[in-house]
């Protein structure tokens, strides 16, 4: 008998429907077609053993299994459950012919029939609702994630027996229901580090506040031990909480990458990714034969922190240039093109020269002529161009270190950041992909970042003096917009503009001269 069942394959950050057709007839042999990969071919043993341990079996007949569309490569072990159920129904060992195609069925089988979790439960649930399926049947560990999507039945199961009884006898499976908004509102962020631990360093704190408020990129340059990494670690504590739509985007990406922990639901904390400098470019940007999101996509709506920027392979840094501008990355392979979102805050830290003491107030720099220039050129001009805020970190004097009072707590700074963000959310509410000033395009820039003639003069002087590019011009305007928002001002004043310009004074041409 012929049966057709439904499931999904992951492509980028979304799911595409896959139909599994099983035909059982007289004869002997198995045929599995539709470009299955090794994991799917291996599933015969898992399915056979799981069925036998539950009192069923793969029949000794001629079985043809087709995974349609037949020209897309099918990958992974998540089809086990679907294949097993389809085989049982096609060989008439259980009933369920009429109901089985109402559901997306996914799950990896263990030899005893228990289910192992899958990746991409959220994108699959979104696809199920789009196609108006009745619901999805998937491992219990993924049910909370899938239940973020309403209007479909989310049936989480622990063992294949539950699915068999569901179709054969009609025994109901408990539906997993999650009140997304409630859970989202309820999840409080507990921050490990606080800005109050940092003494002095007001200019850096100000830069971080601006960066957090508008989602701008930031680089910290300073001698060793001046507090760059310490400050960067505290950045998450002043970031505004994710909005619901940002949380959905981020959860989808983490789900596809297999980074969701079991039984977890919507991600509510901004991601903070800090990869080691030995990372490869594919791991950073995404790719591989089976397209996986890279660190920049995992940092979507969050922060990507690269400490010791000069230690990264130059090529690895260069591949980030285009995503830093376009806020997405398109991976092209011979068989497909996949686009992953990559709108993140880029934060970097580095020393100004090999000995680390260039511009140190007390310790002289021991680097030779032209060495400082050469060191900074490790970071290419185009990359530096894309960083909105350049901050020179100077170490505290012993006096300051011992006598200065504790700094402002993160909660206070965060309040200001949240207020500025609210202004931006309101301003861009018609645009679904834009949540902060850093993300706006040229058209919106012209509309919302208007400056008067005096401001234009100021900017022009700065461009000439510092040798800034047109891209730098745009970015300065965006930063000025954020500074104005933080001040609660509708218009961008000259003081906002000058502060923004000041944060670009470390462009390459000046350094080392």
């Amino acid at each position, binding site marked *: 008998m012929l049966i057709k069942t439904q499931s999904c394959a992951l492509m980028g950050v979304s799911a595409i429907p896959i139909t599994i057709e099983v035909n059982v007839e*007289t*004869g*002997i*042999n*198995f*045929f*599995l077609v539709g470009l299955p990969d090794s994991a799917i*071919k291996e599933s*015969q043993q898992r399915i*056979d053993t799981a069925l036998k341990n539950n009192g069923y079996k*793969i*029949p*000794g*007949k*001629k079985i043809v*299994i087709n995974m349609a569309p037949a020209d897309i490569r099918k990958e992974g072990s998540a089809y086990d459950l679907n294949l097993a159920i389809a085989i049982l129904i096609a060989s008439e060992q259980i009933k369920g012919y009429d109901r089985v195609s109402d559901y997306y069925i996914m799950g990896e089988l263990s030899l005893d029939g228990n289910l192992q979790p899958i990746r991409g439960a959220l994108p699959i649930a979104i696809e199920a609702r789009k196609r108006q399926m009745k619901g999805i049947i998937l491992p219990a560990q993924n049910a909370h994630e899938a239940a973020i999507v309403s209007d479909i039945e989310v049936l989480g199961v622990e063992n294949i027996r539950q699915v068999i009884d569901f179709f054969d006898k009609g025994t109901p499976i408990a539906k997993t229901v999650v009140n997304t908004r409630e859970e989202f509102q309820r999840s409080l962020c507990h921050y490990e580090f606080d800005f109050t631990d940092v003494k002095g360093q007001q200019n850096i704190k100000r830069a971080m506040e601006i960066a957090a408020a508008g989602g701008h990129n930031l680089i910290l340059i300073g001698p060793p031990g001046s507090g760059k990494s310490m400050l960067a670690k505290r950045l998450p504590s002043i970031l505004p909480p994710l909005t619901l739509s940002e949380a959905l985007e981020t959860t989808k990406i983490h789900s596809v990458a297999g980074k969701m922990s079991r039984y977890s639901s919507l991600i509510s904390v901004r991601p903070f990714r800090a990869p080691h400098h030995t990372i490869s470019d594919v791991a950073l940007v995404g790719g591989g034969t089976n397209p996986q999101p890279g660190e920049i996509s995992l940092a979507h709506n969050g922060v990507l922190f690269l400490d010791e920027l000069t230690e990264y392979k130059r090529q690895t840094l260069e591949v980030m240039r285009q995503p830093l501008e376009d806020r997405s990355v398109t991976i092209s392979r011979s068989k497909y093109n996949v686009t992953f979102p990559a709108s993140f805050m880029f934060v970097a830290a580095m020393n100004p020269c090999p000995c680390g003491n260039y511009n140190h107030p007390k310790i002289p720099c021991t680097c030779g002529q032209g060495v400082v220039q050469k060191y900074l050129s490790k970071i290419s001009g185009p990359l530096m161009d894309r960083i909105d805020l350049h901050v020179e970190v100077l170490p505290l004097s012993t006096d300051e270190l011992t006598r200065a009072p504790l700094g402002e707590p993160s909660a206070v700074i965060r309040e200001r950041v949240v207020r500025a963000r609210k202004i931006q959310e309101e301003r861009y509410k018609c645009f679904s992909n834009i949540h902060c000033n850093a993300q706006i395009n040229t058209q919106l820039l012209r509309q919302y970042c208007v400056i008067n003639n005096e401001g234009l003069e100021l900017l022009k002087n700065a461009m000439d003096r510092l040798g800034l590019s047109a891209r730098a011009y745009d970015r300065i305007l965006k930063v000025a917009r954020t500074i104005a928002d933080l001040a609660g001002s509708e218009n961008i004043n000259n003081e906002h503009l000058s502060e923004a310009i000041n944060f670009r004074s470390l462009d390459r041409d000046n350094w080392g001269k």
Partner: protein
Amino acid sequence: MKTETQETGQKGEHLAEEYYRKKGYDILEKNWRHNHLEIDLIATNEKEIVFCEVKTRSNISFGEPEAFVTPTKQKNIIRAANIYVKLNRINKDARFDIVSITLDGEHTSINHLPDAFQPRW
């Protein structure tokens, strides 16, 4: 004139046949051939049809008899079984057994391995 090997083989097949009969199976075919493919024994009960490969040895110094049913041999038995089932329009589930017989003077040991191999995807 039969060789000693042929005689051992025949004795083993006879023992296997008896074994299945005692278990309540009906014997459909013995040494069924189709072109170059052959199956030693085909038996059936109400639920299944069994294709059996019988391996007889006079001693086990060269290994257990069942080890001699190589993957190629298995593939050929499956091909033959497929043809048999199609020709005779049999709708029962097929099963592949190995019966391994050791004739060691007075001692005869029969080792029945049901569902010893399956077709691969």
